[in-house]
């Protein structure tokens, strides 16, 4: 007798029970039925169980039920949304969308996490920038002030000016120059420091001058400015601080 696995036995039992045995299965089944008493008993039990279960009766719910079936169903149909038809896109469309999504994600990650940390400007750099700006303003105002003085030619010019205002500006510039000199202590600022010192002398003279009485004092100031070459020094300093201005000056020269 052939050896049958449990699964093969079960399949043979079922096929026999439901009369679905093929020719080869039938011979196997009959052989097992004759030679294996356990198999035969299993088959008999299955037959009896199936037979018992087939006594189940179906109860007709009645004509009224069948007639009212649609009437009960129809109101529910109106409440039932129909399924949305799914539009099938070609594969390349999904691939393109996926690629774009990955690209956007990469850009987002790059921007969010991989950007070099924003440079934190040290406080002394900020202070240095502020000093530079104040120096520019100081030089510009000093230059304007001195130009006004240098260009005076006679006592009438002096009378037409508000010399008091010149003196006030001089005092403010003296004050500012004192602060700036402290900032110009580091190497490379020696020339500026010297310029501020020269300007201090001139500005102090302006601040203390009684020019209303004597135009000679103005002439002495003009000589002092010229002798010390202060206007030239201011111009040179400004040129060095502003490359654009330097280029313009060189073109003129």
């Amino acid at each position, binding site marked *: 007798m052939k050896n049958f696995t449990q699964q093969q036995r079960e399949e043979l039992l*079922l096929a026999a029970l439901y009369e679905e045995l093929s020719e080869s299965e039938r011979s196997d089944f009959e052989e097992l039925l004759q030679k294996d008493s356990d198999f035969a008993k299993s088959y008999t039990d299955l037959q009896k169980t199936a037979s*018992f279960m087939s006594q189940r009766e179906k109860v007709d719910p009645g004509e009224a039920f069948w007639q009212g079936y649609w009437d009960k169903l129809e109101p529910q149909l109106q409440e039932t949304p129909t399924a949305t038809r799914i539009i099938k896109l070609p594969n390349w469309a999904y691939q393109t969308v996926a690629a774009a999504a990955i690209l956007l994600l990469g850009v987002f990650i790059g921007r969010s996490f991989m950007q070099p940390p924003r440079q934190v400007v040290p406080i002394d750099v900020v202070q240095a920038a502020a000093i530079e700006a104040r120096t520019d303003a100081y030089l510009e105002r000093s230059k304007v002030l001195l130009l006004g003085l240098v260009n005076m030619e006679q006592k009438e010019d002096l009378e037409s000016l508000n010399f008091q205002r010149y003196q006030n500006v001089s005092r403010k510039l003296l004050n500012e120059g004192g602060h700036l000199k402290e900032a110009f202590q580091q190497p490379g600022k020696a020339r500026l420091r010297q310029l501020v010192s020269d300007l201090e002398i001139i500005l102090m003279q302006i601040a203390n001058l009684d020019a209303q009485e004597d135009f000679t004092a103005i002439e002495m100031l003009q000589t002092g400015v010229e002798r010390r070459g202060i206007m030239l020094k201011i111009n040179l300093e400004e040129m060095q601080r502003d490359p654009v201005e330097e280029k313009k000056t060189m073109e003129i020269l």
Partner: protein
Amino acid sequence: MVESEKQLIARVHSDKRVFREVVEQHKQQVYYLALDLAGNHADAQDLSQEAFLKAYKAVDKFRGDSKLGSWLYRITVNCFIDMKRKRQILTTNLEDKHEAEFIGSSKSKHELAKQERGLEGAMLQKNIEKALAQLTPRERSVFVLRHYQEFSLKEIAGVLSIAEGTVKSLLFRALQRLQKELEYYRPDIGLE
């Protein structure tokens, strides 16, 4: 035939009378399958109506490569499995639940038949339902389709979209479980 069903189904949403026609054609099959699965009238009614609602909702998915009846059967079985998963269906209480809901003359006919059958017959039905209630939803679906709907094993595999081997395995397990459940009645049914 299959093609004409597909054409019929294609008009369901534009013309509700078409769906009514489908329901009228298949309501008995679907209801009796639901009754075999659920075991009582009330659940069978809910189950069959839910199956038709799902079919209406998903009518676009009917590809026409199987018969409409088979498609409805599959939906009904799936609804039953879902229903069992969601709640415990009281499948054992055939008499208590469904007779009370029968209407009009059918109720009295049924009761009359029951009286004629006598207590013994009623007990038999109750025991069969009790035994069926012990099966898992999948085992019961396979058993019911084979025994009460008379589907072949291959057809069951097609309806449930499972392999024929799985059908055999589920069916054998179902029969064994029923046999065990009916042990108390072995002498009555000839099982010694």
